[in-house]
């Protein structure tokens, strides 16, 4: 199989960041790598055209998101609801980031896939609403409404209760 120019370097340089985004989408390290590998494999044959458009990562992200949304429709991904709510971390704890992982993971799993995708693109990948709409192939209005709904659900999520306390008083709701 012919190796496209620059593809190997792109994988080496950017796949780590893609896997982190994919983890937030899938909530599982192995599935995240699976998703990124699948997106990259789909991009392989179009690489020269993608590079000419000067935004290869945006293209790969678009493929990754559409693959994720397709998987969510077609495949069971082994997600199970938990009977016992994990303990919430102490924000002063140096390992709070690590301890937060299951809570964030569970909270994201509580969102429908499209809202989860919007949250990851807007608040992790730091895309604008217009860029997010472009990646997801929807309108900016849809991104806004999905984002608002997702934020509402995350704010209601018991697993993250306490996380927003300061912001609630600051934002006035």
């Amino acid at each position, binding site marked *: 199989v012919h190796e496209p120019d620059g593809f190997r370097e792109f994988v080496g340089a950017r796949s780590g960041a893609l896997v982190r985004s994919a*983890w937030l989408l899938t909530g599982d*390290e192995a599935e995240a790598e*699976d998703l990124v590998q699948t997106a990259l*494999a789909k991009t392989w044959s179009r690489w020269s055209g993608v590079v000419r458009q000067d935004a290869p990562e945006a293209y790969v992200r678009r493929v990754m998101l559409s693959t994720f949304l397709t998987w969510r429709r077609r495949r069971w991904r082994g997600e*199970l609801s938990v009977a016992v709510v994990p303990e919430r971390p102490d924000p002063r704890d140096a390992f709070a980031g690590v301890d*937060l992982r299951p809570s964030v993971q569970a909270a994201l799993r509580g969102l429908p896939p499209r809202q989860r995708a919007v949250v990851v693109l807007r*608040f992790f990948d730091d895309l604008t609403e217009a860029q997010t709409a472009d990646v997801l192939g929807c309108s900016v209005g849809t991104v806004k409404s999905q984002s608002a709904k997702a934020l509402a659900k995350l704010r209601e999520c018991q697993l993250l209760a306490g996380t927003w306390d300061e912001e*609630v008083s600051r934002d*006035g709701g």
Partner: protein
Amino acid sequence: VTGVEKRLTELLHSAAPASGGVAFEDVARRVRHRRSVVWSVAGSAATVAAVSVAVSLIGASGGGQSSRPATGPSVDLAGAVPWIDAPAQPYRPPTVSPPAPPATDARPCTADDVGASFAGRDGAGGHLILYVRFRNTSRSTCVLKGYPHVTATEPGLPDEAATNGSFFPTAGTANMAPGQDTFLGLETDTYCTARPGGGGGEPPYHHIHIVLPGGGPVSLDQPAEGFDITCGLHLTEFFVPQPEQPQPHDPLSDLQASLETPPSVSAGSTLIYVADLSNPTDQPISLDPCPGYIESASAPRPVKEIYALNCAPVGAIAATRTIRFEMRMHIPANTPAGPLTIHWALLAPSVTGSATVNVAATPTSAQS
């Protein structure tokens, strides 16, 4: 950007685990695999026949995983169902029909039937909601449904009527037996055309007047916080929180998995092992539709494969019986010598097994 959005960004960044990314070689392997699948699907009859011969030759030499056959000690495959290189079908959990909607045919509650009190608040994205709990204090069942007529009042200020419809979704309502509750949400907003910059002054309204659909006024005072209705006062319909739906039971989840692995395997070869699926119940468990399974190992890069189980020769696993299934997994050539944990899971809830196999030192790895 609001504080909540900033906090969410921080949360996501602190939660997402660091990753070294994926290996180019793994992507290239997928590309080769995708192409072979496309070939086998798109080819003519003659081509398909030719590919079938090629596949059977590959199968005879250790599967479609393009690696050397297993070397070293192996497990006993006597009586095991042979491994097949077949894609897993999507998992379809058993379905249950949703419960019938609760009855809402009781007489309408009047103000004399209920006691009202505030019951907590919540907020999201500039929307604030205050819940009102109505408890049936009468001796008979009644129902609160639809929207009441609600007015915010304050001496010296004009009365403000609430509008129907809220940002916050709610469940449906139900008949309310004596002692049971029904809720109503009162929403105020931080942002609107009248106040595009958000924020607000002292909430000026402290009294809420509710006329129930069944008749009669209910008045509530909230002197402590009050209502800032610059952006209006919006209502949910009456609602009763719905209990969570029970998850349907999948008989496949009763199966128990364990692995039989050889003591060692060489890097770059195909590990041949056995997955034992046991049925501890007193009922047979059908393998139709045939479940898939996932096998994985984590060195040096995660290896993960998803296949269909070879269900055809089995059909079902009889009560209290165990069926042995031959399994294969490619062990990458650059896997370091030492213990390697193999994880196996049926694509059904909670059926997993794992085992450790020792990767034998090869001349190459021994030198490095």
